[in-house]
């Protein structure tokens, strides 16, 4: 395994649309990095440039300290798992997994050993002679993973590998994948638009928006100290309550004369079913039970405020009392929308 480093990658498409505007980051040896962003933010293009499937307009890609910018995908020693798995439909599972090794001239005994190891690890041993058409979505996904694992590449590149699975299987596979890559100590670059995947699996998250990195850091850091208003509202479900400067001032969240955006995460909002000191009365506009928690949408002095309360909240209540503790507030510059303090 090796470190993957991208330096100042730029890419525009036809019609002058900028896709990547100078992206730099490093995935350290053995690190699981998630590239997180909404559709069209450039995360898949970034992954494809690392793989060598697309050429950047400028910038460099280094894998294991070696410049690979001019090399074709096969010479970069990376393995990739595609969103729709991209298995060879005319070959069986064994041949699909073994192909990359065969093409690299690995001796047949060694190929057999590695294919059996990988298929045992992924629970594919019984399916080796089946063709992809005879497999379920989850099984195909595991074959695609097997194909990547047997190669023992310098880095694994995964492009939304769980997005075609149903919710239950996705949740289960998420955990399995995390354990699997921990076990092989793989350097992983994982593209996803799903913040839960990024938060639960990654050692580090790189948040992208409009082809630029908004923040790179550990899941904890990104969630607790978002670098700007975009990251603050992009991560978290429901997202952070963000008040424009006039509303923040009206709520008394700002020091005298300060002009800031103020935000608070729904779980940091204090809510009481009875009047309490320092709490302000609010109307319950909507209560959405999710099981472990209930999401309230409150009419808080004329502003919509979302709050997460324990799941045993009394749904018949039409009123509640809420407070926004100062230590939980996040402040952002109203112009640059960057974090203040």
């Amino acid at each position, binding site marked *: 395994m090796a470190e993957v480093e991208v330096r100042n990658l730029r890419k525009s498409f036809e019609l002058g649309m900028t896709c990547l505007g100078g992206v730099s980051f490093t995935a350290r040896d053995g690190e699981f990095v998630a590239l997180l962003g909404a559709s069209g933010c450039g995360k898949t293009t970034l992954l494809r440039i690392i*793989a060598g*499937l697309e050429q950047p307009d400028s910038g460099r890609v280094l894998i294991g300290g070696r410049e690979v910018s001019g090399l*074709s995908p*096969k010479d970069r020693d*990376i393995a*990739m798992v*595609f*969103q729709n798995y*991209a298995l060879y439909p*005319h070959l069986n599972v064994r041949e699909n997994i073994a192909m990359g090794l065969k093409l690299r001239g690995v001796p047949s005994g060694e190929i057999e050993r590695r294919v059996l190891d990988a298929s045992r690890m992924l629970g594919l041993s019984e399916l080796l002679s089946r063709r992809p058409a005879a497999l379920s979505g989850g099984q195909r996904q595991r074959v695609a993973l097997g194909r990547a694992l047997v190669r023992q590449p310098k880095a694994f590149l995964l492009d939304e590998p769980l997005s075609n699975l149903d919710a239950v299987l996705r949740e289960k596979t998420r955990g399995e994948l995390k354990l699997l890559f921990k076990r092989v100590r793989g350097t992983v670059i994982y593209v996803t638009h799903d913040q839960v995947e990024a938060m639960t699996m990654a050692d580090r998250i790189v948040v992208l928006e409009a082809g630029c990195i908004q923040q790179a850091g550990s899941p904890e850091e990104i969630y607790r100290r978002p670098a700007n208003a975009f990251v603050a509202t992009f991560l978290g479900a429901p997202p952070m309550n963000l008040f424009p400067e006039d509303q923040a001032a009206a709520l008394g969240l700002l020091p005298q004369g300060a002009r800031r955006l103020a935000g608070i995460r729904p779980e940091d909002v204090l809510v009481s079913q009875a009047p309490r000191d320092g709490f302000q009365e609010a109307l319950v506009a909507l209560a959405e039970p999710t099981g472990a928690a209930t999401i309230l949408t409150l009419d808080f002095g004329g502003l919509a405020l979302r709050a997460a309360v324990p799941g045993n909240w009394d749904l018949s209540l039409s009123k509640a009392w809420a407070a926004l503790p100062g230590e939980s507030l996040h402040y952002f510059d109203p112009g640059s929308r960057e974090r203040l303090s």
Partner: protein
Amino acid sequence: MKGKGKKLLYLAAILAATAWSLAPFLWQLITSLKSQAEVMAIPPTYWPREPSLASYARIFTTRPGAGDIQNSRLDAAGTTFLCTFLGALAAYALSRLRLPGGKWALRAILLVALFPPTLLVVPLKQLVQGAGLLNNPLSLILSYAALNLPFAIWVLMSFFRQVPADIEEAAQVDGFSRWGLLWRIILPLSAPAVATTAILVFIFSWNEFLLALTFLSRDSARTVPVGIALLSGVTVYEVPWDQISAAVVVTTLPVVAMVLAFQKRIIEGLTAGAVKG
């Protein structure tokens, strides 16, 4: 009741269409089993009075019939291989590599296909003569391949375009070269198109008459369609219909057998991309 009537009508229409299409072939078959005297008899007989295989025996003994078939087989097989091979390369390049001017090349290929081959006979003959290829099977193989290339390229291209780009990219990451990708991934996945192209090119070459008559004058190089046209009777005024029919049956059967064997694939190949699948 209404549904049953409709079904019967449908069946009758299919039977009528089949009979209409098969009648000429059936007539050839019946004629091939008659004697020359019976073929010329008036009124004509619809069923041979004394069915015999004598005309079949004669085409192989009195004329170099087997030699003609061998020549046709060589020309058609050579053309099929060359045309499918070059067609696959061109179709892959035009469908996947972003070639400058690729669109124009495609239009030019379509334009070439619109020329009636008859127009090309004289210039082709001059070319073949200039290259010293008269009476050489290569003259036919090269001409047939050239005439069929536009068709091969268009059919194969429409199939190659349906192979998901992700599979090709996965193959590139796996370590395939462009050649390996074409031969081991794209072509096997496009087997119906390859089979369709190969068979239709084979049939064209097997049946072609005009160029074969023009380029090959030597008996030993002659192909089946020319051989059949040149069959003659005892006198110049006599046309040996019984032998001609026998020869037509003998040369048509292998093609019919081949098409039946690959029927499913040909239909897949011709209708691919017609509906969203």
